[in-house]
């Protein structure tokens, strides 16, 4: 009974970490991706300096392996949350790694929208803002949903890593009970829960993307 309780709590912690950090990634990554896209586009809002600066920052964060990012930004995490241990603290590195990932995803989704549609929007007198939220985002929404699915699944994996260094969640349980105490049942249970979680995310993502395209 105690073990089931343990797994339930850990599962919720993992879900919480993944969803909250994904939410921040979308809130910050979407405008960032849009900005990267429009600052490169000669007919929208070409600002080469802004584009290359943002591109450089995004590449920089993306090139750091997550396990290193996790420990490297501990001071930053402590600044925001007040501590670097626990589920809430783990959301910070998770979000930091997901933001540039999602920004690139949005940018590449928008690259797939035909230039003809942007041109039609301009010819109809749309502002850059209207082109973004009435043409680019709706026309690339299925690709963006598939990207969110991918990001959520990556975050499930990363959250387990965060768990290993005190972030809580299923990763933490797997390490402390499954690995250090040789409780093989717990280990198997965490793996099964993670598999189910990933399958559910993929299934929902595919379903929504199909509905939207």
């Amino acid at each position, binding site marked *: 009974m105690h073990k089931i309780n343990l797994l339930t709590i850990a599962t919720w912690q993992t879900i919480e970490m993944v969803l909250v950090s994904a939410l921040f990634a979308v809130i910050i990554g979407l405008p960032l991706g849009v900005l990267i896209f429009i600052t490169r586009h000669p*007919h929208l809002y070409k600002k080469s300096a802004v584009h290359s600066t943002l591109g450089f920052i995004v590449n920089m964060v993306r090139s750091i392996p997550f396990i290193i990012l996790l420990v490297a930004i501990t001071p930053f995490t402590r600044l925001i949350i007040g501590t670097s241990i626990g589920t809430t603290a783990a959301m910070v590195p998770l979000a930091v790694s997901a933001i540039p990932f999602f920004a690139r995803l949005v940018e590449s989704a928008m690259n797939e929208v*035909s230039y*003809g*549609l942007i*041109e*039609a929007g*301009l*010819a*109809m*007198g*749309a*502002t850059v803002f*209207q082109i973004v939220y*009435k*043409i680019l985002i*709706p*026309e690339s*929404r299925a690709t963006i949903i598939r990207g969110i699915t991918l990001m959520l699944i990556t975050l499930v994996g990363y959250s387990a890593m965060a768990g290993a260094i005190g972030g809580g969640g299923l990763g933490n349980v797997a390490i402390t009970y499954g690995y250090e105490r040789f409780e093989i049942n717990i280990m198997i249970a965490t793996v099964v829960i993670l598999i189910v979680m990933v399958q559910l995310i993929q299934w929902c993502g595919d379903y929504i993307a199909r509905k*939207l395209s």
Partner: protein
Amino acid sequence: MIELYNINKIYSNQSGKIHALNNINLSVAPGEIVGVIGKSGAGKSTLIRCVNLLEKPTSGFVRVNNIELTTLNAAQLRQARHQIGMIFQHFNLLATRNVFDNVAFPLTLLKKSKKEINKIVSTLLEKVGLSDKRNVFPHHLSGGQKQRVAIARALATNPKVLLCDEMTSALDLETTYDILKLIRNINQDLGLSILCITHEMSVIKAIADRVAVIDQGEIIECATAVDLFKNPQTEITKRLIQLEMRGFVDA
């Protein structure tokens, strides 16, 4: 009406400068249909995009509906573009919106009321013969139907000028004929000034009052459609007419 004065467009890249348009002078009178014909790469696309400043001319003046577009700021230019309809070779409809919402699109940009949009869009769909397709999404439509939606969309803001960029090049012969007939009707009903660019002489023959032949960024010949066919002045024009008369058999 459309007036282009001394338009030059020069693209610069690493390999040098490309003179895409060379001293273009062209006008479309109120209610007139002017066709611009030329081979691919002759500068037709750049020319038509210079009219609504999708491409900014390197030098020269563009005047549409008596407004000098080349002097406007960004907001004024957007305002002016609401008065210039445009249709495209590949239709450029929004795949995530149905027929009604595609036609309503330019009106939503202007924040018109739902009631007004409904009235305008219904009238336009009737005009282009698609009243029964209002809830259908573009990928369920044929090429000709898509172009009809695009035409209705271009007319939604009640423009005085219509730009047609290779409007029938992606359509089969019969559909081309229907679309050209529709454009003719619209021209007569609404008194619209129309500028068409095309590489097909049949389009010119069917609808143009006047024709300009463009080659290597220059207008090499400009005449009424009748005169051009009767008495072509340049080799390029003769060749284009020949191709149209004979078809592809011994071209």
